[in-house]
């Protein structure tokens, strides 16, 4: 089965063309904010380099976020269009799942994290169970322990410390395992987490934790075998954060007494220009 996997959830993008057996091609690169142009160029390139045609693709896998809203939408737009026009199955996988799956050998809870801006983090917690079959082949079963969260580092840390007992046995009986934090985590967030976790955690190197679309492809293949495919007409991104809506300015006259303008709108909300631009319809 030939699977094309796309991930433009953040400034770090990845693309892979895989079968169950091997990676035919994979890119992981810094895309900045040029998601759309670079993703399409690279899809074209990877297909050509692997001597395949678009029609030979058997399934499409896509990272559904969380991450940059526009970035997530680019991969989703492309993946939906591919699945719809090639009439092939589509599987969406959270970018936090991909980050966690890359750390499956860690013996303890894994917490994948992406920066959400405004000093908040997108996060989810996972655990892995190792098993080997009669032929001695090793495999890891990923289990998601928590919901997908949007929390400040302090709140995330206190949540994890509370939950650790529930997840990992009887308090006082044995030492709680260390959390492994991985993903795209800023220095400030790392310091904050480390302090609030009372040092009961370790951090994966950010380069090691870079998302690889081949891992997305593997997760998607598993889910495809379990019959968990998505409808390209209905698949939605995992935004987690609601759009910031600044209605205040719309309710007041633009002209005249400035004191009528509310002072309560968030300084981190969309810029004035964006709001003004957004107000224009035709």
């Amino acid at each position, binding site marked *: 089965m030939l699977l094309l996997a796309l991930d433009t959830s953040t400034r770090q993008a990845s693309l892979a063309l895989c079968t169950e057996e091997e990676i035919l091609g994979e890119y992981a690169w810094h895309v900045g904010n040029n998601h759309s142009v670079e993703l399409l160029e690279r899809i074209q390139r990877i297909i050509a380099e692997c001597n395949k045609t678009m029609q030979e693709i058997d399934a499409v896998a896509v990272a559904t976020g969380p991450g940059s809203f526009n970035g997530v939408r680019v991969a989703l*737009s492309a993946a939906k269009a591919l699945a719809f026009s090639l009439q092939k199955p589509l599987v969406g996988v959270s970018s936090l799942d991909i980050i966690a799956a890359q750390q499956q050998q860690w013996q303890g809870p894994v917490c994948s994290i992406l920066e959400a801006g405004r000093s908040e983090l997108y996060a989810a917690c996972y655990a892995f169970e190792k098993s080997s079959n009669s032929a001695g082949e090793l495999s890891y079963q990923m289990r998601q322990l928590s919901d997908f969260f949007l929390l400040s580092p302090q709140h995330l840390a206190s949540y994890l410390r509370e939950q650790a007992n529930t997840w990992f046995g009887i308090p006082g009986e044995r030492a709680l395992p260390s959390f492994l934090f991985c993903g795209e985590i800023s220095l400030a967030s790392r310091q904050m987490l480390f302090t609030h976790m009372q040092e009961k955690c370790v951090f994966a190197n950010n380069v090691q934790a870079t998302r690889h679309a081949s891992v997305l492809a593997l997760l998607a293949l598993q889910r495809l075998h379990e019959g968990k495919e998505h409808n390209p*007409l209905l698949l939605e991104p995992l935004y987690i954060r609601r759009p910031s809506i600044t209605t205040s300015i719309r309710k007041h006259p633009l002209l005249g007494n400035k004191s009528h303008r509310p002072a309560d709108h968030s300084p981190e909300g969309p810029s004035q220009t964006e709001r003004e631009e*957004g107000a224009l319809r035709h």
Partner: protein
Amino acid sequence: MRVLGIESSCDETGAAIVEDGRYLLSNVVASQVEIHNRYGGVVPEVASRQQLSSIIPVIETAMEKAACSWQDIDAIGATYGPGLAGSLLVGLTVGKTLALARNLPFIGVNHLEAHIYANWLLKDESPPERETASASWDVRESDPTFPLICLVISGAHSELVLVRGHGQYELLGRTRDDAAGEAFDKVARILGLDYPGGPAIQHAAQRAEEEMRQQKKPVELARSAYRLPRAWLRGTYDFSFSGLKTAMLHLAEGAAGYQHPTPAPDGKKSTGGESKQQSQYTRMGMQAAQRGTP
């Protein structure tokens, strides 16, 4: 030659199939106006999210209505701008990906140029049976003849364009400040009316005229009761709507008991057409146009 056209520049998701450049086989639009009414304006992030939800169903419906399969489509076009970045990104990415997947040519189209060419669409005619594909398009007597002037009112744009021939554009004039639609929205807000402003003002005016008729008062009197500035700048083909907007504000502030409106958006629907609004623009455009073109 059949083209799938995709438009996602603001808060509406559109897809259409057009044959031989003129025959509209299907045209499907998903509007978000009811969602944005609640916020009193288009919220870009909300619009982008809706674009992604609607786009594939809208394209599928357009293909169904035109009874087209992928084999029947020869090219794909999508709006590349101007518009809201997040919204444009969805339609453009989908359009380019469809072209890549189906090995079809992709054409990025300027939204304002598309507005001009909407005038050549044949909406209620089916294309003639042809042996071979036609390279040129069918000409009609009722077609606009060159040179012509087109008033383009869209989003932030209010422009007067001289079209000398196919694809030959010359910008004669544009708004120096607000776009026409923006002026309507702002005046509606001054008057405490709903969003979008155009239809809200139109309805308010119709209601007022109706009341006057019932009270047997001459409607013409009301129409000339206030002196408001014209939206065009003398000696140019440019427009300026900010003077009109300021005049409206002063007028409103001068009225007894006027309070700056602070209505909470209550989800009231503004319904109704844009015919009056548009004809007003057209008259404005005609006046500007009268000022001598070759």
